[in-house]
């Protein structure tokens, strides 16, 4: 208590009388929150408000390109949904697929690193993060090479007759989902690792001791205990993947693989249609928020603590 007072005033203070000591104690948490709140206000609340107001603007009749005026036209939203719902659905579909794939790849990987890797653990963790040392764009372009005609994948698939002779893998939904999965894999792996690493092997032994075979032990003990990691990992993968446009741009390059991020980008930068871009951004944000809320509630918030 005396500590708090001293820290707040920045100097040694004689122990305050009980009544006055109550004030600094209750104020300290708010003071500590202040920098965060200022940051949030400046870089989140204000931009969101601006974005929202932009989304309700309309073109000035007879005005120049990029000239808009505030008309509070909520119908903008209906127009946008009508026009771009396909891309919305596609974005969530791709992001969802990528999230599921990333989970399937990352879970065994994280499990191995956390429970079995022993002294290789740190090296393996570095390897998981290593791709981050190369630029996101470069890595995605590299995927274009890997999946391209000259890359190693296509000949193998053709040889195994998994794809028809003339077909390619680039410029397709497969390529975009593969790119998303690859690029966001570390975001899935690290939280999973963190929660799996914390699981005491004794719980797994206790499962075996109480008549659960290894699979049941995994389902009834390991998996529930790693749920915080699953929730965090899927959110960290799904949210950025849903809004991503680089993968669709570099690996899709087709109207049928356009994601919502691509639409926002082209509306904003090329067509200079600010209200539509803002509407789309806002809708994306709202949709993700709703999905995440529903998801976290279903996954059980209790497991998150």
């Amino acid at each position, binding site marked *: 208590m005396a500590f708090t007072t001293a820290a707040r005033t920045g100097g040694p203070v004689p122990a305050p009388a009980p009544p006055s000591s109550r004030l600094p104690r209750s104020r300290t948490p708010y003071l500590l929150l202040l920098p965060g709140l200022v940051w949030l206000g400046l870089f989140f609340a204000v931009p969101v408000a601006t974005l929202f107001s932009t989304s309700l603007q309309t073109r000035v009749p007879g005005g120049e390109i990029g000239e808009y005026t505030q008309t509070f036209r909520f119908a903008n939203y209906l127009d946008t949904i009508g026009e771009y719902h396909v891309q919305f659905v596609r974005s969530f579909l791709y992001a969802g697929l990528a999230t599921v794939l990333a989970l399937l790849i990352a879970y065994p990987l994280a499990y191995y690193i956390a429970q079995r890797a022993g002294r290789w653990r740190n090296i393996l963790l570095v390897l998981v993060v290593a791709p981050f040392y190369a630029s996101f764009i470069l890595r995605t372009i590299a995927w274009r090479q890997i999946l391209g005609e000259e890359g190693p994948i296509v000949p193998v698939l053709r040889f195994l007759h998994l794809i028809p002779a003339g077909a390619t893998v680039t410029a397709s939904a497969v390529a975009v989902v593969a790119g998303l999965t690859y690029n966001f894999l570390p975001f899935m792996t690290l939280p999973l690792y963190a929660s799996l690493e914390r699981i005491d092997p004794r719980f797994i*032994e206790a499962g075996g001791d109480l008549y659960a075979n290894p699979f049941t032990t995994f389902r009834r003990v390991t998996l529930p*205990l790693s749920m915080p990691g699953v929730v965090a990992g899927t959110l960290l993968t799904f949210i950025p993947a849903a809004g991503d446009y680089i993968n669709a741009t570099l690996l899709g390059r087709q109207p049928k693989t356009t994601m919502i991020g691509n639409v926002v980008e082209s509306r904003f930068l090329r067509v200079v249609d600010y209200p539509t871009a803002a509407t789309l951004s806002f809708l994306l944000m709202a949709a993700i928020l709703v999905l995440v809320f529903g998801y976290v509630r279903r996954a059980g918030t209790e497991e998150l603590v």
Partner: protein
Amino acid sequence: MAGALLSDHPTGDLRLDRLVKRFGAFVAVDDVSLTVPKGSFFALLGPSGCGKTTTLRMIAGLEEPTAGSIHLGTLDITSAKPYRRPVNTVFQNYALFPHLDVFENVAFGLRRRRISRVREQVMAALDLVEMTHLARRRPAQLSGGQQQRIALARALVNQPRVLLLDEPLGALDLKLRRQMQLELKRIQVEVGITFVHVTHDQEEAMTMADTVAVMNQGRIEQFGPPTELYGAPRTTFVANFLGQSNLVPGRRVSGGGSHLIPVDCNGQTVLLPDDRCMTSADQVLVGVRPEKVHLLPAGMNPPTGHNRLVGGRVADASFTGVSTQYLVAMPWGQDLTVFAQNVGRGGPVPVGAAVTLGWEPEHTFGLEGETGTPAGRDARVTARMR
């Protein structure tokens, strides 16, 4: 699928036969053979790191033996998977599932075996450990003693053939520990399941168990009823790990009457029953428990036929309430310990007084060894300090 092993209810004793466990070059369990009678309370006692947990883990199936076999009655369970053994464990730190409440923790084993009337059985098990009122709590919301009871209920509810307890009371304070010891004993008598209880607390082992096995550096030094282990230890380690012992080096001399061996201890002869002498060598360590020894003023003799050591001098006396513990310096430079009951006949013997030690020959035991170095003492001190 948890089939054969669980369903045909093997009865009978738990038998470990020449069990060995190596970790690399290190031998954690070294040629252990034991029989735990069905329905008995068996304590595995030993200092830290002697291989108790490893032995228990092999019985539970959590560790694979390097050599040897484990039988339950006629059934060989040496390499059976843990989830197929009719054996349950109370882990050293309970290992209650944090994501399940108390009820579901206890129900876990029953559900895995698809046993009916789960609710009834769980409540009965919780009732046994007096925890029904906390059925819906999470383990994190329980005290150490409560967690210990739940861990016990979680294992007992499965009615295993053998229950393994790995220092289940280690985390509890002394008072709760004593209380739980009595309770564990009550429960064991009530359910009649074989308990194998691991501990490094000799008092705990002796108060609870029907049979105690003393383990040291991966080997079983001796096993038997507590009174036998205490009264006739076979090794210096047991003599010092289980209570305290005075061990005086001596040499066999000829003579002596019916089944009494005379031993010369630094010029004084004491008698030792031949059935309590564990060595046939000439060199003998003569042992006697401190509470069996009487202090007499120098010049006075103990009753005829009793053993006698003269020339002692009280080096230290510490009053502990019920008894006084004396340290008596002997002429050959060894300190012997004597516990005297404070029965009120005169005051304590003052420090510096010249005394004679006397005790009955039947309380004497003879061990192999040449020096009085208490081999078990270091280990015991370490165990106490943990």
